[in-house]
C-alpha cells in the first residue's frame, strides 16, 4: 500500500505526497507534467509518469476550501487507500486522510474527539471535521 506524507505551511497551504516503496527515487528527479486543478480549483494534482497514478496533491487555501476539497476527494478519488504514518492511520481513503490533516494542522488538534457512532459504524474523520466546521463557522 502506498504511503501519504503531509506538509503544511501557515496559514493554509497543504500538500500530500505519495511514497511508493516499489518505485525507487529517480536519479535526475521526477519529470512530471506539473500540478493541475481537478474538480475544484483549489485541489491540484500531479501524476507520477512512471505509474500514471497521482503522487502529489496541493490545496493552497485549505483553511478556507477544505469542505470542497474533502468532498471532491470523497466523490472522485476514494478508490485507493493509503497509509499515513504521521497520523497513525492505516488503509484510509484520501478524504479521511485530508480530514485528519485539517483537524491536525488547521484546527491544531482542538477539535473534540467524537466516539464511534456504533460498533458497526466506524468513526468517520471527514464527517467529524465537516460537522465541527459547520458548528463553528
Amino acid at each position, binding site marked *: 500500500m502506498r504511503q501519504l506524507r503531509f506538509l503544511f*505551511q501557515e496559514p493554509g*497551504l497543504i500538500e500530500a505526497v505519495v511514497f511508493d516503496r516499489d518505485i525507487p527515487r529517480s536519479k535526475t*528527479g521526477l519529470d512530471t*507534467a506539473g*500540478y*493541475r486543478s481537478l474538480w475544484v*480549483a483549489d485541489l491540484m494534482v500531479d501524476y507520477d509518469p512512471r505509474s500514471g497514478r497521482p503522487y502529489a496533491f*496541493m490545496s*493552497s487555501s485549505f483553511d478556507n476550501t477544505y469542505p470542497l476539497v474533502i468532498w471532491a476527494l470523497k466523490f472522485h478519488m476514494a478508490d485507493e487507500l493509503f497509509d499515513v504514518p504521521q497520523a497513525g492511520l492505516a488503509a484510509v481513503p484520501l478524504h479521511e486522510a485530508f480530514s485528519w490533516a485539517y483537524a491536525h494542522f488547521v484546527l491544531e488538534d482542538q477539535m473534540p474527539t467524537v466516539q464511534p457512532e456504533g460498533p458497526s459504524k466506524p468513526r468517520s474523520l471527514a464527517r467529524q471535521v465537516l460537522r465541527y466546521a459547520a458548528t463553528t463557522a
Partner: protein
Amino acid sequence: MRQPFPSEEYITIVDNKGREKVQRIEFVVRDVRGEDVYVTADGLTYTEDSLEAKDQSYLIEKLSSLSGILTQPDIVIWDPAEAPGDTLIYYKRLYIAAFRRHKVVAAIVKVRRGIKFFYNLHVQESGKVKGLSVVPPSEIEVWYIAPRVRRRQFGL
C-alpha cells in the same frame, strides 16, 4: 532583491481565523509592478522540503531565480480559488537542464493586510493556469501579462 530593513525583519501573518503567526524575513523582492514581496524563512524551508519530498530537487536551485520569476513573470493571475486580492500566482517558463527543456513554474504569493509574502514554488501543467477546466477562463482574472506573451499560451 534586497535585505529587509530592521523594521521589517519579522512579519505577522494573519490566517483566515484571525490567528497571528510571526515569521522571519530572509529577503525582499520588488515584483513586476514594483511592489515588495517578502520571502520568509518558513516559506523557503517549506518549499525546499516540498520539492525534496516530491523528488523535484532540480527546482530547489530555481529558488535562487525567485527574483526573476517575480520581476519578469510571463503571466500573473489572481488565484481563482480565492477572492481577488487574496493570492497571486506568478507563472514563468524556466529551462530545466536535467530534462533539457522548459517547464512552467508557479510562485504563489499571499496577500495579507496589504503585505505580499512568498508562499510556495511548484511545477504547473504547461499551458494551463490554476483552475482551468474547473473555472471558466473568463472568470480567471489576469493581474499582469508580459508584452511578448499571449493569454492562450496559458489556456486563457
